[in-house]
């Protein structure tokens, strides 16, 4: 078995200063980073859609919808 099990995780252990098990680990840093990523995604999405895309007139519209709008 070559999967590094808890006993045989010898390679990284040189720099491991503590063992953190499953139940004692809360990935708060990941949560913070990914939250940041989420905010960036939301901002960029709206920027791209409403500024870059809709601001790039003219745009293809459906002919019929426009006729209705004119009436």
């Amino acid at each position, binding site marked *: 078995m070559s999967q590094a099990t808890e006993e045989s995780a010898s390679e990284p252990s040189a720099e491991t200063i503590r063992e953190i098990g499953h139940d004692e680990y*809360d*990935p*708060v840093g*990941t*949560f913070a980073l*990914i939250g940041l990523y*989420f905010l960036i*995604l*939301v901002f960029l*999405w*709206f920027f791209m*859609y409403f500024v870059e*895309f*809709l601001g*790039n*007139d*003219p*745009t*293809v*519209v*459906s*002919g019929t*919808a*426009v006729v209705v*709008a004119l009436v």
Partner: protein
Amino acid sequence: MNVHTYEKIWLVAAMVLIVAFIATITYGSVGLGIAMVGDQQPTIEPTELGDDERFGEPRVEQVGENEYEAYVVAQTFSYQPDPIEVPEDSQVTFYVTARDVIHSFSIAGTNVNTMAIPGEIAEMTVEFDEAGEYGIVCNEYCGPDHHNMEGKLHVVSADEFDLTDLSADGPDEVAVGDSVDVDVVVENRQLEDLETTVTLEIGDETVSEEVTVPGGDAVETTLSVDSSALGEGDHDWTVTVDDHDSSGSVTVLEELDDDADGGEDDE
């Protein structure tokens, strides 16, 4: 299965994100009426475009008060017509097909962009509010000269815009004393009647005629100048209607060598 609370929250957030993306696109489609190029149009034989009513003569046509249709053919390595001219404040429906390989029809710096696939016709309706000039690029690789495939779209002000076609035809030779008759056809592809003046200039002579060309129709007329006033020799002539002109030349001879050449010179 043992999923950490933070990852559960992230899972929910990711789903919200996905749904929000789909909702935005749907809002664009339904709320703003942004339509996709689709399967609205029937297929067409790419080798028989020449006989097609719409693509045989690629052009812009008026179909409603401010509505126009543009029939565009993309081919290696150009667009027909080129330039495409439409008026401002208009709604233009482009019908684009390809004669040979897959191209695109993309108006640079705008959201007007479609593939042009042989056998298929792309339909796109676009509103042009302001006058301006745009470049058209082919953004699908279509062969060794792909980078030279470009066209132009001119959105012109309403006064400058027309869909008038002028053709004029005159005799090659006339005998002194006979009249030089230039047959003029003025075609008006706009819907409104066109009231305009047809002018023939030949040498120092100028003849004009007021014509009214009904919308979607053509008017034929003949403008005549007495060749005696011109004198013997070669004379260039030009027929002008608004911004359009058509020209030719006529030789006034002492006597015609060949009667058959003269054609019908009587009214």
